[in-house]
């Protein structure tokens, strides 16, 4: 087993989404099915 000298950071595992984000569960499911929505980079000047 590995030694842990530094204090343990809280793992991101089981960090549930905030209540407000739960309302957008449909959107999360969409993201899960494919890629993350709204992340395609918008290139300025390109239409």
């Amino acid at each position, binding site marked *: 087993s590995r030694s842990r000298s530094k204090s343990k950071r809280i793992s*991101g*595992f089981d960090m549930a*989404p905030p209540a407000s984000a739960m309302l957008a569960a449909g959107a*999360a499911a969409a993201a*899960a099915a494919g890629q*993350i929505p709204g992340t395609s*980079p918008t290139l300025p000047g390109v239409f």
Partner: protein
Amino acid sequence: CSRLHTKPSISPTLLLSNMYQRPDMITPGVDAQGNPIDPRKIQEHFEEFYEDLFEELSKYGEIESLNICDNLADHMVGNVYVQFREEEHAANALRNLSGRYYSGRPIIVDFSPVTDFREATCR
């Protein structure tokens, strides 16, 4: 690629889709608020993510390899591939990770046909 790859019913390798989110995923080197991010911070963020994953996945079996796609392109963005020594360990991890969250996002886990990352190209 945009092809639909068949998901094997059993494999030593798991795919965790879109799990890693770079802090500068919208614009390279810049955070969501438009402030520049120190490259060391990005590296640190990545290492913490890797450590979280390694620690969690080690509970389910011996890890052969752990690959995190640290890319910014649309394709495979943030995908995590974890190969266990044994198929049953991968199956155990899949059962235990399904339906859970990481940093407020659902974990999407499936078996992956990839067993050799040097040969991992679309066929």
